[in-house]
């Protein structure tokens, strides 16, 4: 059987040179879908056009990033790519949702287009054979609404993905599909898999004894004001052992909040203390939710363990993976020099991914490495 999967990584610029290097690494392949993740310095539309020219049977989808990686290396200001042949993905369908003021309606319409292409409503598709990938604008703050709508139209399908980045410039993120470049949008990719697959989600946190109930919050701005009836800065600072005026990015990165579901944390990362006393998060937290203050564990060890669980679920070594790793995890790896150990977790199979402004699976999440792992 011809090669069914290859990954590629380049740091070349401009798009013409980068695409040539990617194509050389991807080589001969009857690709059904090509995912690529590029820096905001690259002309992603041009990259996708050139990849599509080379693989005309493939849907070519991608987005801008806060760093790119493949199984054994990574960096910033580059392009990573993963090409999947018919032996991995029987069919791939893509729909663009221009989110604007009505993200739910846009997702519903996109889901209908996917359903028409797949020949059945998404909620009726066999979830053991179909997986979804969601790439979404990383600055529009629409992730929760988009994930909730996906829960309505396809409650049993796993849409896994990431929010596009611009390497911490926070100016504009973009998505790309077969030569088209869009912002304020989401790309929904429906994959009919030819091989078994599983979803991996790992973070490097464990709950502490400190837990709160959110008593005042503004979900629209992802801000929490009070927990257990007390100003959030005071209660949170006390729990992590600092003064309220010492709360900063370093504290936040080590002590996010986690919603525990079946002993599994779903992380909400604090972003900043606001002048009005609230703490803004990278993810919504609703009033009434119970959250735990988390403590850091071993990022690379947890990542290895997650790949081990995926291996178990697949009944053997993975054949490939598409990965979405939070920018905050990248910053931790930058600070600790842990990138080689992070890549080591994916040794032995082709993988590609990017450092995100948020991950998606069943909802919007932070500070995870989440992805689609397949045989």
């Amino acid at each position, binding site marked *: 059987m011809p090669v069914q999967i290859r990954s590629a990584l380049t740091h070349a610029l401009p798009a013409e040179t980068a695409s040539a290097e990617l194509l050389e690494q991807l080589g001969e392949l009857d690709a059904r879908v090509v995912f690529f993740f590029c820096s905001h310095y690259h002309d992603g539309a041009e990259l996708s056009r050139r990849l599509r020219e080379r693989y005309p049977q493939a849907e070519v989808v991608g987005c801008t990033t806060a760093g790119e990686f493949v199984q054994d290396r990574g960096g910033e200001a580059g392009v990573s790519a993963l090409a999947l042949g018919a032996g991995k993905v029987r069919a791939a369908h893509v729909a663009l949702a221009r989110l604007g003021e009505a993200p739910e309606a846009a997702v519903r319409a996109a889901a209908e287009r996917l359903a028409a292409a797949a020949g059945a409503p998404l909620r009726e598709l066999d979830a053991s054979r179909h997986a979804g990938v969601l790439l979404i604008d990383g600055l529009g703050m629409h992730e929760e609404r988009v994930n*909730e709508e996906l829960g*309505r139209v396809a*409650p049993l399908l796993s849409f896994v993905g990431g929010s596009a980045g611009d390497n911490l410039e926070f100016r504009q993120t973009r998505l790309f599909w077969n030569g088209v470049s869009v912002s304020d949008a989401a790309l929904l990719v429906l994959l009919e898999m030819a091989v078994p697959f599983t979803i991996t989600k790992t973070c490097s946190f464990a709950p502490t004894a400190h837990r709160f109930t*959110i008593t005042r919050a503004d979900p629209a701005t992802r801000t929490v004001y009070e927990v257990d009836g007390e100003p959030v800065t005071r209660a949170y600072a006390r729990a992590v052992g600092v003064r309220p005026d010492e709360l900063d990015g370093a504290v936040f990165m080590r002590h996010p909040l986690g*919603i525990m*579901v*079946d002993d599994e944390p779903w992380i909400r990362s604090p972003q900043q203390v606001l002048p009005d006393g609230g703490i803004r998060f990278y993810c919504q937290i609703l009033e009434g*939710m119970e959250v735990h203050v988390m403590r850091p564990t071993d990022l690379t060890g947890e990542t290895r363990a997650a790949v081990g669980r995926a291996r178990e679920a697949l009944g053997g070594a993975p054949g490939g993976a598409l990965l979405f790793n939070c920018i905050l995890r990248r910053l931790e790896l930058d600070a600790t020099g842990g990138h080689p150990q992070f890549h080591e977790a994916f040794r032995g199979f082709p993988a590609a991914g990017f450092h995100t402004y948020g991950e998606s699976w069943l909802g919007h999440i932070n500070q995870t490495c989440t992805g689609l792992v397949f045989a």
Partner: protein
Amino acid sequence: MKTLEEIRHALCQHAGSEVVFGMINTRLVLRTGVNLRAIKPEADRDAATVQKVLAALREFGYLS
């Protein structure tokens, strides 16, 4: 249905498997904060909470 426990029981039957139940329950927790696998005694019969959970599950297409 007037309690979260009744909803949990109905959803278990409707879902048909632990995996499906787990997926729906996770979506429910992220959306409402209510975990049907760890129902708090004070929430079990709280009418507002029960209605919130029922509304979310109906939107998912579970429980009519």
